[in-house]
Each structure stands twice: as structure tokens, then as C-alpha cells.
């Protein structure tokens, strides 16, 4: 399954912030059902888009060695609808990162207008407190995300 809800990164500062954009279009099938006669990007998918933006930011901070899983939506507040033809900008900031987890703060804007504020927690699941084990291969950062990360200039990366 292809499940990518951002189109590209436009800014990427290692361990600090990442900015992506998403173009919303009527070519997306689901939008015709959400809602018939009034298509708009579902808010849950905006959370997913932010989770992908912020999740890649978190993953890159540890060179994609950790399996980064969305663990908690700390905050999700929506101020406006997002309609076909809109380009939204997703800005994620890394608030805290530790061996076990990371927290991010983010906002979504359209032409400078605030659309949503979304703060998330991610778990590095191999280091979960319950000591559960997961498959060895990194099933989070698969080649599905490769095209997104390829060609992005990452600022502030050592070496």
C-alpha cells in the first residue's frame, strides 16, 4: 500500500525542524466521499501528514536507525477546512528527543493562514519500557519514503 500524505520536503534542518508541502487534489479518491458535494481533506489525514513530516524529522535525527512510531497525539486543533486545489505547508519542530521517545510540535498553514496545530509523541519502539520485541528490519523507514528523502538538502548534519 502506498500511504504518503506529503508531496515533498522544502526545508530540513537535522534534529531541529522540517517543512513539507502537500497539494490537495480531486484526483484523490477518498475526498469525493469526504464529503459528497463538499470535498475536503480529512483532518485525520492531516494528522497523518504531520506524523510523516515529524516522524521523518525524528528518524533522521538518529540516522534512521530507530523504528519511529506515532505513540500519542498530544494536541490536534483545526481552524479551517482544506479544500481541493489548496497547498498546505506542514512545519514540524523537534521539541525533545531521548533514547526511548521524541516529542514534536507542529503547525499547518495555507498561504500563511493557520490551519491546524498538531503536537505528537513518537516512540523508538525497540526501546519501549515493556521490553516487547519487534521484527529486526526497519519496517517504518522503508523504500516508500526514499523518494521523499532523496535530494533533500539536510542542513546542520555533521560529517
Amino acid at each position, binding site marked *: 500500500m502506498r500511504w504518503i500524505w506529503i508531496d515533498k520536503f522544502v526545508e530540513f534542518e537535522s534534529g531541529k525542524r522540517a517543512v513539507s508541502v502537500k497539494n490537495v487534489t480531486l484526483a484523490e479518491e477518498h475526498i469525493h466521499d469526504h464529503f459528497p458535494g463538499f470535498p475536503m481533506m480529512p483532518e485525520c489525514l492531516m494528522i497523518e501528514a504531520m506524523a510523516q513530516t515529524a516522524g521523518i524529522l525524528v528518524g533522521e535525527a538518529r540516522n534512521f536507525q530507530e523504528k519511529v512510531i506515532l*505513540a*500519542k497525539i*498530544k494536541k490536534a486543533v483545526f481552524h479551517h477546512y482544506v479544500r481541493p486545489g489548496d497547498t498546505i505547508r506542514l512545519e514540524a519542530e523537534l*521539541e*525533545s528527543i*531521548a*533514547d*526511548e*521517545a521524541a*516529542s514534536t510540535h507542529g503547525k499547518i498553514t495555507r498561504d500563511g493562514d493557520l490551519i491546524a496545530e498538531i503536537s505528537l*509523541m513518537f*516512540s523508538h519502539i525497540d526501546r*519501549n*519500557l*515493556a*521490553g516487547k520485541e519487534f521484527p529486526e528490519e526497519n519496517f517504518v523507514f522503508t523504500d516508500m519514503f526514499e523518494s521523499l528523502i532523496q535530494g533533500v538538502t539536510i542542513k546542520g548534519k555533521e560529517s
Partner: protein
Amino acid sequence: MAMSRDEIFSQVQEVMVDALGVDDDEVTENATLMGDLGAESIDFLDIVFRLEKAFAIKIPREELFPAENLMSNSEYVKDGKLTDAGLAALTEAMPHTDMSGFKADPDINKLGDLFTVSSVVNYIEMKLNAA
């Protein structure tokens, strides 16, 4: 400038309200994080991050909530209860926590009840005074 215990408590209260989505009157000194306030494992990390920010301190994970590390040690746990050695280790690791009730029946299922709002406040107080 040193913070009073009341000031620390009210900041901790705010952290719990934001992290756990509870009302501030639920966050009493004796409230347990898991039982009363519904915290899950990821919430503990959320709380640690928020406390670090609120008080501008660094909190090593095993310091505030050290029980997980002890549980995996077979010398410390026997038949679902902490052994004397386990109790001693836990007491040493959690000087900020009142163990008196737990010592009478050190059932590991009741470990969660040790994490109360007041133990967090005590910990922060200890940390700020040491700084």
C-alpha cells in the same frame, strides 16, 4: 531563585493536566498517575519531557520512574513480590517516594501506585535543591 513546594506543585499540576487531559482538581498530592490519572507508558515519557521543559532540568529516565529496571532483576522479584533486596534497591532509587504502605505488601502489581503526584513534586524539589 528557589521555588516553594506550592509553586512546584502548581507547575506539576499544569504538566499533568496538559499531558493526561485531566482536570486540575483531579491532580491532588495523593493521586496516582496510573490508577487515578490514567497514565500509560508513553505518557510517562511525555511527562518527563514536559517537566524538563517546565523546570529547565535534565531528568534521567531511570531516576524519576526507576521501577522498570528493577523488575527485570530476578534477585529483586520473587513470586510476584519484591524481595527485601528489591525493596532496598527501590527505596534507594526512589528517595522521593513514600514506601511505607508498599512495604507491607510489596506486590509488583501495586508498584504503579507508588507513582503519585506528590512523589513527582518531591523529586523536582530534590532536583532543584541539588542544582
